[in-house]
């Protein structure tokens, strides 16, 4: 089973996770820029994070045979903090970097006026930089937030097939499908969505334009949820080709719209800026 995890925050994960993901079949992933457990208080905190997403983290992934890409954005929660908002001015520099395959995560957290502004401005950036957009749908008031997100996407003029709305559930899947946008599902241990509910959604709505991710981060999450969903699909009677479509071909097609996917990871370089991931002397 070859797997492309279209949404996983590897900066929060260990090298053990990378090894386990590779063993499970993960060969490529996208790490969206998002908030951290600890709120940021300055633009510099963002730029160091973005530098890691296009620098150190792809290097770390490459050591485990996994191709790492990322999305760059001011996330919805921190769009409410005036100390963070000026990072918007720096985004054009980062949106032209090689490993950046979308603008994201953008969208809503609490649906404030500040979030409206950042969301619209960043959809415009996606158009300017010829990139797809990854839209986070809010955890609270999800149905209303998703509806409003679809309206903002429509207003922006970006083509719906260049947008994915993520963290969908049974109540939001239909409206997103009808919008023409891609459908993203985050499979979590207890919340959001689990693999059996995911299988039921795939049965009802089909495998087209569907992206399944682990969204693993610094919270309770599981970087192998993509593989577990693939296994659950097979157990439920889906074919290997269906699994390949959902877990590989769909994310390749979606992020491939950036023209910047490079799916061969290059583990040749043993050091990044003079640092290796090895600790102590080699055995």
């Amino acid at each position, binding site marked *: 089973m070859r797997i492309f995890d279209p949404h996983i925050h590897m900066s929060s994960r260990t090298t053990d996770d990378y090894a386990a993901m590779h063993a499970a079949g993960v060969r490529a992933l996208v790490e969206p820029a998002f908030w951290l457990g600890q709120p940021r208080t300055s633009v510099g905190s963002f*730029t160091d994070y973005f530098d890691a997403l*296009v620098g150190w983290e792809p290097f770390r992934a490459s050591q485990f045979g996994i191709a790492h890409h990322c999305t760059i954005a001011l996330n919805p929660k921190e769009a409410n903090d005036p100390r963070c908002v000026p990072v918007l001015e720096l985004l054009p*520099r*980062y*949106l*032209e970097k*090689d490993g950046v395959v979308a603008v994201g995560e953008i969208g809503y957290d609490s649906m404030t006026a500040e979030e409206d502004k950042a969301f619209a401005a960043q959809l415009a950036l996606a158009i300017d930089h010829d990139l797809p957009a990854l839209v986070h749908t809010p955890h609270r008031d999800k149905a209303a937030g998703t509806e409003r997100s679809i309206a903002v996407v429509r207003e922006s003029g970006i083509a719906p097939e260049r947008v994915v709305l993520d963290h969908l559930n049974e109540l939001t899947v239909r409206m997103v499908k009808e919008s023409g946008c891609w459908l993203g599902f985050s499979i979590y241990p207890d919340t959001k969505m689990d693999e059996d509910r995911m299988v039921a959604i795939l049965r009802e709505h089909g495998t087209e334009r569907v992206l399944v991710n682990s969204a693993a981060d610094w919270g309770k999450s599981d970087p192998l949820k993509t593989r577990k969903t693939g296994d659950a699909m097979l157990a439920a009677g889906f074919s290997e080709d269906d699994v390949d479509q959902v877990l590989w071909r769909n994310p390749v097609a979606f992020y491939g719209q950036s023209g*910047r996917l490079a799916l061969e990871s290059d583990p040749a370089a043993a050091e990044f800026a003079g640092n290796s991931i090895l600790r102590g002397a080699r055995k």
Partner: protein
Amino acid sequence: MTGWLENALSDVAADATALRTVFPAVGRRVGRGPSDVPGRTVDDVARVRLLEAAPGAAAELPGLYRYGDAAEKRAVLYGLSVVDTGDAGVELVADALRTNDTRLVTAAMGEYAATHLEDAAYRHGVLKCVFMGIPLAEVAGLDRRTDGELLCMLRSFAAERAAAGREIPADLRTLLNEQDA
């Protein structure tokens, strides 16, 4: 793809701030293979051309360096020899010399460093190159800036290597022999 570079050259000639979005895209547009210039890649050469083409590039260099990946930073360091930044580039060279990235350290020790670095910084730059295995042929200005103190540091480095039973780089041995002759 050369069409892309021609367009980019005229964009940055009209407005140097266009460098901010053009610079990161160069590698995937023109390639990253070796160029006609020894030691430099096709994207290195294209980026330096872009800097030369942009009036006011000097004001953009610090930002291009700060937000650049390793390839962009390297090109900014090369660019210091073709864009007049006065002493403002010294800070960028100093940053590059603090890294452990041989590509950046090599690019930092170009003609600009040979002209602008103070003695102590220049000596440590040379020593760092030797320590990291960067060929001395890549270091600019050795003929005119090698002084007694630098030789003393290099001899001490060689002695330390010899005592540890480790190899002394051939080009360092040659340099020290020439000085002794």
